[in-house]
């Protein structure tokens, strides 16, 4: 009797120790995993705080509208850079969006063959190409041929970053449209391209707009391809065939200067840039995620798959 009791106690103890150890390991892993999340968010917080804290003192009407003053003087502003960023975003959308949308239509409506599969694959791979290579490419086929730095070259380089994103998001949102919609159109005797434009695209509009805006926020911050295409300048836009300024380029140039005033202006430009980019990014996500649109809710998930 006594013997059995002690043995039971031993077993219980062993069991407790074993489980306690496993639970402890589990707890430690939980803490490590949670701290990973915290560690990753710290830089984001620090970047946002520093950009706002340092940038806000630089912001003024003159800073936003004037051309840069002489180097190191701390005078002048980033007017040309803001203007240039808007121009380059507009022009690259002009090239990138139609190609991207058409390519997305191809992938979704005619996307069940060998060509489409390879297009999809290369789209995904192309999305991850180092952007500086696209800059070199635009330089070689436009700047070198024309003989001068050109705004079109920059817009072309950025459109190359843009169109695969637009294509894949368009494809995903068109695929969300139920086949019955298309069948209804066919039953009415409509032509396929009319079905696509009138029915399918109008049903998938919000998803496509998100994709386009997210690609805009992506190219707005690109710097590397602009170095060898629009070069940077301190004057307002004058023609398509001369160098132009853009916010990321201006930030880069300012960061190379050894003056405190330049540093301050760099923070100011960074604040403007981050407001534009995070503004578009957050705005789009917030606006569309609040819409409670079933089509779109599904789309957000698909999009996050596609972009990666």
């Amino acid at each position: 009797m006594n013997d059995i009791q002690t043995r039971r106690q031993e077993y219980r103890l062993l069991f407790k120790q074993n489980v306690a150890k496993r639970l402890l390991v589990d707890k430690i892993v939980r803490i490590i995993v949670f701290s990973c999340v915290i560690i990753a968010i710290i830089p984001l917080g620090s970047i946002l705080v520093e950009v706002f804290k340092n940038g806000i003192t630089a912001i003024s009407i003159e800073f936003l509208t004037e051309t840069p003053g002489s180097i190191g003087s701390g005078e002048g502003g980033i007017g040309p850079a803001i203007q240039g960023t808007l121009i380059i975003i507009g022009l690259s959308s002009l090239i990138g969006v139609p190609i991207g949308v058409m390519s997305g239509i191809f992938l979704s409506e005619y996307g069940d063959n060998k060509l489409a599969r390879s297009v999809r694959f290369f789209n995904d791979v192309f999305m991850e190409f180092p952007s500086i290579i696209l800059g070199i490419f635009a330089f070689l086929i436009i700047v070198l041929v024309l003989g001068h730095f050109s705004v079109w070259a920059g817009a072309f380089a950025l459109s190359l970053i843009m169109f695969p994103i637009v294509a894949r998001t368009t494809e995903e949102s068109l695929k969300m449209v139920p086949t019955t919609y298309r069948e209804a159109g066919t039953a009415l005797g409509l032509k396929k391209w009319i079905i696509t434009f009138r029915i399918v695209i109008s049903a998938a509009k919000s998803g496509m707009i998100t994709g386009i805006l997210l690609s805009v926020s992506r190219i707005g911050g690109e710097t590397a391809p602009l170095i060898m295409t629009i070069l940077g300048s301190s004057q307002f836009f004058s023609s398509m065939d001369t160098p132009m300024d853009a916010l990321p380029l201006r930030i880069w140039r300012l960061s190379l200067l050894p003056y405190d005033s330049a540093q301050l202006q760099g923070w100011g430009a960074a604040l403007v840039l981050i407001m534009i980019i995070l503004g578009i990014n957050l705005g789009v996500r917030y606006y569309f995620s609040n819409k409670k649109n079933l089509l779109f809710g599904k789309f957000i998930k698909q999009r996050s798959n596609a972009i990666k």
Partner: protein
Amino acid sequence: MNKVNLNIKQRKIISDKIFKIGVTTAGAYVLIVVVLIAFQLVSESYPVWEEEGLSFITKTDWNAVEGRESFGALPYILGTLTTSAIAMMIGVPLSIGIAMFISDAPPKIGAPLGFLVELLAAVPSVIYGLWGLYVFRIYFRDWFETPLHDAFGDNIWLFSGNPYGLDILTASVILAIMIIPTVSAVSREIMKAVPQQQKEAAYMLGATKWEMFKLAIFPYSKTGLIGASILGLGRAVGETMAVTMLIGNATGLGAIPSSLFGPSQTMSSIIANEFVEASPASIHMPALIGIGLILLLIAIVINVVAHLLVTRMLKIKEGAINN
């Protein structure tokens, strides 16, 4: 009567055909561009291959002075590989931890945290550079590099050199932060693709949460997680601005990575630094384009491998759900 019908049918076919040709061309655009890029980089860098031969890849000098031109890409290849490797060592475990947390947390906590991590990807590279240059570098140098150097600098070559903040380690840490959103988001999808039954089976055996990950998720999603990390490697290899601003930009022999606290240069940063000043007439520009070609080849290989691994993994998921 019959004739009219036929006409309509024909018109319909023609306009649809034009539409199909149009969208197919737009779809094929990406293939055309990829081929054109490869062709352009090869043909424009041809002079440097002609001049230096394959030793362009193995040489270490970098001299653009007229009459004494000599170019070797080895230091920059090594610089890219070193910074990317260190970035992977820091970034991948962190990302997998984040993916574990978010894939397992209740959506109310997981979704906003995942969103915050994804916001890291929306911050432009040049702002990472600015922040790294004026904020991160200072703290990192004073709190991390200097103590390490004081403790081990005389004995271990890894920590020799004078910590100044503009070095391989700083650039690598920034790179690590920049690859976290990619790797963690893809890893999260991969982990979610593990069939629910597998997890439940592990719990039924009495596993704790960690044991569930060890028993059910990791073995199942291994290839996918490797693919996600390689995708991060692709990002790290091509990243330009932040690295250019933080790596110290040495050239030639000085750019060969010798210590964590030494300056170096990567393939993309030397292109960003020198491309505009290089004259198309001399061999300097072909040399830079040649480096671009090597970078492109590395990036293509990395990304193709990564996409094959990741899509295969996600396809298995679809199969599993259908069963």
